């Protein structure tokens, strides 16, 4: 019996750790069901009549629906474009190893290692110069560019793991390269494709700085809405912030729940594999 008791204690400790890390997020969600006075009450109230007013008001804002649409539209289209072109490039890097592969892979990665304000500065000047600021195409293509390094690195790792015998068999049997790439390689690297899709999605979904600088009224996403809508007439608008954050965290948290297996490969550019 002693072992089971110890196991229970061990499990209780693990749950406690998880709850400690989740506590601030739980506090946000809890606050989103409070009135403005309850959010600022001292001492903080734990028991209260939950209200859905904050959500009703949030979704009544036309600007919010527009920004939510932007968040979805920008992240989904940028990520799809990025993964599609990255898959082709990763295949080329993996199979043909054209001259300069290592150097290009290095350059690609270094884009992602640069602080955001340094990365966006020249793009901002270019966009102002060309009049691309606050256009959907401008935003989507920039986000796609920023998602490419990650996708190429993840996908190259996965394609490296598929034996070239498959290509060879396909060639011998007269299949075109396009057919080999889409019918033979793609199905085998689906986990890599999923990892690249969801981690770039989370990145673009949460991205604030680039959107704030090269976006505008038309293309602003929810993180920008949160920053610009921070203050209402009576100080910081906490009901708006808590409701908005609670809505906005749903997709990333669902991703972590459903795609836990891909978390590791996704967060390490595909350089570390393994189950969690």
């Amino acid at each position, binding site marked *: 019996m002693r072992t089971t008791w110890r196991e229970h204690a061990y499990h209780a400790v693990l749950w406690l750790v998880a709850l400690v890390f989740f506590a601030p997020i739980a506090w946000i969600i809890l606050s989103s069901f409070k009135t403005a006075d309850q959010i600022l009450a001292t001492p903080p109230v734990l028991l209260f009549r939950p209200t859905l007013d904050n959500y009703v008001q949030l979704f009544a804002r036309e600007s919010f629906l527009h920004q939510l649409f932007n968040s979805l539209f920008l992240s989904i289209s940028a990520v799809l474009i990025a993964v599609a072109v990255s898959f082709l490039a990763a295949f080329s890097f993996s199979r043909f190893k054209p001259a300069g592969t290592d150097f290009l892979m290095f350059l*690609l990665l270094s884009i992602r*290692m640069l602080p955001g304000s340094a990365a966006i500065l020249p793009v901002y000047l270019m966009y102002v110069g060309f009049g691309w600021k606050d256009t959907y195409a401008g935003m989507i293509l920039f986000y796609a560019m920023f998602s490419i390094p990650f996708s190429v690195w993840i996908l190259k790792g996965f394609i490296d793991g598929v034996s070239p015998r498959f290509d060879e068999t396909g060639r011998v*049997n*007269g299949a075109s390269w396009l057919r080999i790439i889409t019918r033979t390689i793609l199905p085998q690297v689906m986990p890599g494709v999923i990892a690249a899709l969801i981690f770039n999605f989370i990145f673009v979904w949460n991205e604030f700085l680039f959107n704030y600088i090269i976006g505008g009224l038309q293309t602003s996403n929810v993180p920008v809405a949160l920053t610009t809508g921070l203050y209402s007439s009576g100080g910081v608008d906490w009901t708006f912030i808590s409701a908005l954050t609670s809505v906005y965290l749903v997709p990333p948290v669902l991703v972590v729940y459903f795609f*836990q297996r891909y978390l590791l490969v996704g967060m390490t550019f595909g350089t570390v594999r393994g189950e969690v």
Partner: protein
Amino acid sequence: MPGELAAPGLHARRPAGGGIARFLGRRTVLPGLLLIPVLAFFIVWNTIPTLWLLGLSFYRFSLTSGRAPIYAGLLNFQNILNDSGVWLDLSRTLLFVISGVGIQTVLGMLLGLLFWNSQRLPGRRVALTMLFAPMVLTPVASGTFWRLIYDPTFGVLNSILRGIGLPGTNFLGDSSTAFAAVLVVDIWMWTPFMVLMTLAALASVPKAELEAAEIDQLTWWQRLRLVLLFHGKYILMLGILLRTIDSFKTMDLIYNMTFGGPGTTTQLVAITLYRRAFEAFNMGWSSALAVILLLISIAFTATFIFVLHWRDKAEA
């Protein structure tokens, strides 16, 4: 589809000796063709802007003055290197990276070891989702909400402090506590990442060696050093490097929380650049600073790839 299967004669045309390398080695436009889209993206959105940046860093140019850029040679770089404010921001960033990543690594490794045998934890998936959630929450949103948690009058943290008889503190508003307060949020957000990396590192240890360590009755310290760290060190190093690079870039988290304040006590170098570029619109100076940060990032990337190759060699 049978129609697309090879005619027998095709095998005869296969190059002698066979092997994928052989027939892929034939000069073909395909490798280049497949790269065109990525290269196009890379050239338009990276190479051209970077060259633009590089060029501008040699000019005196402000967007607010309305004057055309004036060639200034290395003046911007000289100004930056002589600017004690920039050095202060850089050293503050260094302190932020070292203390943040250091604490995250130690705490992450301890929690990772704790979660090592959690396979039978009831609701494990939910528990891990809760643990990993801080990493995927929008940084501007968590930064904003931590402001409420830290608030001197309405914040839950100060209520707890007052409840146990301690004096309340204006964590983010007081220049002596603001840096530590921001650091705590960064640690909360990113310790789960080091837990994840530690779990991956532990999973890379061969079972047989763990059993051997058990039989040889190694002490826990010997086990950690000789077995766990011996096999897991590459993954941990990659984790520490990724965290270092990311921490060096910290911007969104601080943006709504303190925006570098009070004074400049939480102003990391990414914020410095933001202020000079997008508030003061001093583009020449900012470009020069961005070039310096670019060089630092390239050094980080090179180190990361060096560790990757090192691991590949060790595992080969």
